[in-house]
């Protein structure tokens, strides 16, 4: 027994060390960005990887105070949540249908969706521009949310369908016997059971919107309406005006909210199946 415990401790320590190394390697470019962001010199780009002599937070301050960071942040939140709601509410039911029903055209439709997804999105911009101009959706969050949700819809359907497939049908059937309707079944049973997949998909949608700048800077007329990525892209768009310390500070500031979100949702990501959906 004792030997077994020491064995486990040794194995866990090795695993911990491996993960610490892995995390460190992953974080090297980010550490680089961080060191740049707190350096004050004008030639900051050259000094990287050394702890700067006079660390300073002025770059963070510059972005938070001098630029409409908070407004962009709010816009990002609105756009991401709007997109998430639209994309998820349309695709959850669709992926449920594709997972649970065997109807004519199902296979064809699934494959078609996949192929459609292969069309490079950047090529669509011009067409969507023409369409939205006629529909008066330019310079409008609804237009952008439609674009974002539409771009992520196929991904969401496919991603969740795979997971829905693994949920035993028996659970649903017993609920149906108990008199639950289809809507109730999705809401009460499928959603909790597929929670990890739904959260992962929702997070994917959210990150996509959070980091998107091309459509935002093209379809919105006013800088004040940009999202974070768009605003910061505009701030540092060309090589000649790029201040690397500021650029890095911006990079860190955009990423942190996503990381906080990610850290806090992790406890919900354990599958309903494992935590007792079946057994309980």
């Amino acid at each position, binding site marked *: 027994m004792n030997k077994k415990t020491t064995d486990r401790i040794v194995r866990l320590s090795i695993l911990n060390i491996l993960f610490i190394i892995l995390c460190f390697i992953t974080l090297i470019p980010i550490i680089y960005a961080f060191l740049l962001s707190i350096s004050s010199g004008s030639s900051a780009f050259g000094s990287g990887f050394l702890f700067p002599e006079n660390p300073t937070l002025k770059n963070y301050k510059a972005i938070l105070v001098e630029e409409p960071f908070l407004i962009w942040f709010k816009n990002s939140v609105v756009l991401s949540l709007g997109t998430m709601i639209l994309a998820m509410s349309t695709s959850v039911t669709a992926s449920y249908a594709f997972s649970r029903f065997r109807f004519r055209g199902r296979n064809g439709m699934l494959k078609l969706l996949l192929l459609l997804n292969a069309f490079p999105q950047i090529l669509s911009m011009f067409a969507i521009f023409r369409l939205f101009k006629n529909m008066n959706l330019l310079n409008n969050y609804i237009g952008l949310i439609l674009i974002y949700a539409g771009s992520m819809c196929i991904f969401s359907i496919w991603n969740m369908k795979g997971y829905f497939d693994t949920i035993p049908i028996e659970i649903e059937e017993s609920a149906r016997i108990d008199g639950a309707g289809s809507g109730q079944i999705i809401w009460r049973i499928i959603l909790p059971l597929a929670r990890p997949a739904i959260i992962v998909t929702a997070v994917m949608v959210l990150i996509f919107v959070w980091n998107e700048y091309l459509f935002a800077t093209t379809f919105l007329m006013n800088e004040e309406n940009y999202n974070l990525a768009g605003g910061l892209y505009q701030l540092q768009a060309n090589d000649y*005006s790029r201040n690397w310390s500021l650029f890095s500070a911006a990079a860190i500031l955009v990423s942190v909210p996503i990381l906080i979100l990610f850290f806090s949702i992790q406890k919900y990501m354990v599958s309903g199946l494992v935590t007792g959906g079946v057994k309980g």
Partner: protein
Amino acid sequence: MRKMVLVLCIVMAVSIFTGCSRSSQSVAAKQKNKEALNTIRIWHDGDKALIQLMENYLNEALIDDGITVKFEQKSGLTDQIKLYGNDEVNGPDMYMYAHDSLGMFVEMGALAPLTDVIDKNVYADMLPMTLKAGNYKNDQYLMPVYFETLLFIYNKDLWEGEVPSATEDLYSYMKSHTDAAAGTYALVNQHSTAYNVAPIINGFGGFILNEQAEPGLNNRKTKEAIEYNKKFAQLEADGDYNTVNALFKDGKAAAIIGGPWLISGVKEAKINYGIKSLCDFKLPNGNTLIPYSGVQGIGVMKHAARSKKDAVEKVLNEIANPQLGIDLAQNSGCAPSNQKSYNTESVANDEMIAAMRRTADIAQPMPNIPQMSVMWGPAESLLAAVNKSGKELDAAADDYQKEAETAIADMQ
């Protein structure tokens, strides 16, 4: 869970509402016709401080006429003008940008000639080179504001002795003062960027694109120039903008070939710098280096020339005022296009502005025909292939010449 959904729905509703109110605002704006007619929106992708100065200047000057000028920054301006150039509701009334994309915008039918709005006399005082830059098919489309050329910027504390006046002497100085292993350089340059090699190409009598829209990448003289540039390139570090810039600012490079946009950073790095015009360097063939010049000018959208003629006219008149050039020179170190601005002593005596003013007489404006937009790629690929990947010059030149010819043919 329900609660969260409810909250999300509210957020969504709010976002839709703000979206709607925004579009209803633009409807309201249309109704306030008068106000809209007197607001001129100018798109740009320029330096913030400089643009702020221009905006303040114009608004102060036009306050009695009740005209408001709004500068709006758009990154990727070329693509944005393609989409919005003819869009009266969402697009700009005017735009300010470097002149090399002019031909493209004109061919697209987005721009109106200046003479639709103002008289020729208004821009009579501009430097001829800057006017030529804004002229396409014998119509003047751009009101030049200021111009840029490459300069030889050196660190007075590092450079030993006089800066040579012949490129050959410069080369021997570089040879004896460059230690790539230790990371110190005599001169750095973006040696694989077409704009930065153009001074040599033009000086050798070669060309990237001539006025007949023929690419000249495998022209004999162009190739000689590229070969000549390669010799320097080997002593000029990597040649990426960020690298050469950092080397100079760190005091690792004694000199750099760069534009006026570098100066604010150089000042911040507290470098004791001196400036020499590129036309002060003689090539072995007796010519001087002949850099490209880039002219920042303001053009008028077709719809604005029609519907906001009066306001546009007044704005253009103010832009042509020599005082704007003086303000820009004094605050942002720009070389004004208006010759009268140079009558002010502080402008004429500024070392950098004087150097650019002198270069202006020999500099070639970048071609502004639409074909130029597809030339940067092949020209740069050729330079990178020769300088960075060690490709054989003749073969590479033929390849990229062909690529350029195909790209130009593809435009039609």
